[in-house]
């Protein structure tokens, strides 16, 4: 490139020719800035060439640092190397250039009050005249281009020099700004990748996804890359299942780290404790020693006995878990202690409940504080409504659908959403004697009656009682076929018969739309009409029957009971 350049000094006298040269130089330097892959080198060559063209003795490039309070010499050319030199922006002519964001041309520094002479003192250099141009981008100053002592002519800089320096300074400022943007973009990308990796590792700390055959299921959806919420569950050697669901204060990396620490502590220690209160006491002491910055963890942590459906747990400052009874009632079980990581001596009381065919919902405030389509917080009441609406689904599907509803499309998720469902596998119905799944086709009834009768006889019923049970179950099936499925033979019916300590319990489930319970009341017998006898028969033949208005995992559920011993 330099070979093509004419020797500028030889033809300097013609003003037009000078303008053309200056434009050529600027165009070349600007183009180099724009295409530079190494800004450091480019800036160095640029000030070298600029110094030579301007016939200056020295040139330097200062950049602002320390929140724009200091100027640091980034590049320099000339007899004295001042690179790395720092000066306050309140000092000297260079500082004035920043403060006023305007070119400073001092033809004789001895007459300037602003000249500090600091550099001259330390270097032995003698400054006569100065030209400073601010490096400005979009009104923001990033540094100063400085030229010292004009060698030719009268030894003074002139307005044309000033204009030229000003243009070059702007081009250099833009190049520096772009390079910084690119660097920050690279840094941002690197941090983003690291966060994604952290999120990935964190997801692997959570148990595998849903399985309706397991009594515990959980879901976690972080609002950002990493989550401050977590949950865990795993079976223990003694047949019990350990579970927890927690919320770490704050969001972001620090919360995620505390989450990982707490989760790992619990995973290790849960095997050594049988009392959930003692487990939390131990973990709390550990966290109080190490947790900092006022961070804390709210948690529900406990053990499940799958056989009996008993759940014991401690609640450290967390949202009250919601228990749904088998009858469809809801109750909240409030926290008995403050969060983990606050007071080392905290004692954690234990709550004990029996699932008895019901379920326990644990969740973080991201669930209850999520906004509905009406922009109101969901609240516990809204969650209860959702649970009731999804009650016909299997546990795993129910949990996922509830969370999908909360994270409805278009809604911005503001907090981590974490939820756990503990559901009794024990039906509370006793030993299962018989199970048949069949289509809602009247043709299936004959075979079903035969099988049910022999199962009832085998359970120890008299022939008469067996006949009564068969008649009652047959009537119930007919009701499902005619009223629930409305004659659609493709529907399915599930019949189970259990022996609950001398009481035969028959459970009939269907997956039709819920039936209005008022339609299945027995009619008075003195009312002579062809229909409506079925429920009357059931009522007469069985000791008790219950139609569940909000059954879980099916559309309608009818339970018939008759004592046989």
């Amino acid at each position, binding site marked *: 490139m330099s070979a093509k350049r004419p020797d500028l000094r030889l033809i300097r006298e013609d003003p037009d020719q000078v303008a053309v040269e200056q434009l050529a130089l600027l165009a070349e330097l600007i183009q180099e800035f724009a295409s530079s892959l190494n800004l450091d080198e480019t800036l160095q060559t640029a000030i070298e060439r600029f110094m030579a063209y301007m016939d200056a003795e020295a040139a330097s490039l200062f950049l602002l640092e320390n929140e724009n309070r200091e100027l640091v010499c980034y590049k320099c050319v000339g007899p004295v190397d001042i690179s790395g030199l720092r000066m306050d922006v309140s000092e000297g002519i260079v500082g004035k250039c920043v403060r006023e964001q305007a070119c400073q041309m001092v033809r004789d520094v001895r007459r300037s009050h602003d000249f500090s002479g600091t550099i001259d003192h330390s270097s032995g250099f003698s400054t006569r005249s100065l030209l400073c141009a601010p490096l400005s981008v979009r009104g923001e100053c990033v540094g100063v281009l400085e030229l010292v002592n004009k060698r030719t002519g009268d030894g003074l800089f002139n307005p044309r020099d000033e204009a030229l320096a000003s243009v070059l300074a702007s081009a250099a400022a833009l190049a520096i700004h772009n390079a910084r943007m690119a660097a920050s973009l690279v840094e941002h990308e690197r941090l983003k990748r690291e966060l994604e990796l952290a999120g990935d590792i964190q997801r692997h700390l959570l148990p595998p996804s849903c399985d309706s055959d397991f009594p515990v299921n959980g879901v976690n959806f972080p609002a950002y890359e990493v989550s401050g919420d977590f949950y865990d569950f795993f079976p223990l050697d003694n047949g019990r299942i350990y579970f927890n669901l927690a919320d770490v204060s704050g969001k972001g990396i620090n919360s995620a780290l505390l989450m990982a620490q707490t989760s790992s502590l619990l995973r290790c220690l849960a095997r050594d404790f049988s009392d959930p209160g003692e487990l939390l006491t131990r973990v709390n002491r550990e966290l109080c020693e190490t947790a900092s910055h006022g961070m804390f963890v709210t948690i529900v942590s406990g053990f499940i006995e799958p056989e009996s459906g008993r759940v014991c747990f401690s609640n450290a400052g967390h949202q009250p878990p919601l228990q749904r009874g088998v009858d469809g009632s809801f109750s909240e079980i409030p926290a008995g202690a403050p969060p983990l990581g606050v007071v080392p001596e905290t004692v954690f009381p234990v709550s004990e409940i029996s699932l008895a065919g019901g379920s326990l919902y644990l969740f973080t405030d991201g669930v209850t504080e999520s906004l509905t389509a009406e922009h109101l917080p969901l609240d516990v009441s809204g969650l209860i409504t959702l649970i009731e609406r999804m009650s016909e689904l299997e546990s795993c599907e129910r949990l996922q659908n509830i969370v999908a509803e909360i994270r409805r499309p278009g809604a911005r998720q503001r907090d981590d959403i974490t939820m756990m469902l503990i559901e009794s596998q024990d039906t509370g119905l006793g030993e299962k004697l018989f199970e048949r799944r069949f289509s809602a086709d009247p043709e299936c009834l*004959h075979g079903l*009656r035969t099988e049910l009768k022999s199962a009832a006889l085998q359970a120890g019923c008299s022939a008469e009682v067996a006949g009564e049970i068969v008649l009652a179950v047959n009537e119930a099936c007919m009701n499902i076929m005619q009223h629930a499925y409305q004659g659609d033979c493709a529907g399915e019916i599930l019949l189970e018969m259990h022996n609950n300590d001398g009481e035969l319990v028959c459970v009939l489930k269907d997956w039709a739309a819920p039936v209005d319970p008022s339609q299945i009341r027995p009619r008075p017998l003195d009312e002579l009409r062809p229909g409506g006898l079925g429920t*009357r028969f059931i009522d007469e033949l069985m000791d008790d029957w219950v139609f569940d208005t909000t059954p879980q995992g099916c559309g309608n559920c009818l339970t018939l009971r008759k004592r046989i011993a």
Partner: protein
Amino acid sequence: MGFGHRTEGGYAVVELRGDVDLARSPEARALILQFLEQRSDLLVDLSEVAYIDSSGVASLVEGYQVAKKEGLKFGLIGVSEAALSVLRLARLDQVFPIHSDLDARIADDG
């Protein structure tokens, strides 16, 4: 086991057999209503009925009501133990005229 019918002693006799349940009561109902539409006095023979449910009973109730409205004779004969227990359950043993067989019914008609 299909349902049968015969005409005897001035009655159309519908013979229900086996299981009269939801799968087969539509057939029983159609047969009963068919003879009543022909203005026959009608007896339903339940001697061979192994099982009857509320839908089967409903066909008998409907037959009884139509006959009464049309001024025709209606009754049950030879009611099996299985059928009788269900009719008792519905208190219909007190509503339907029930005879052991056709002869007993004719004797009762006088």
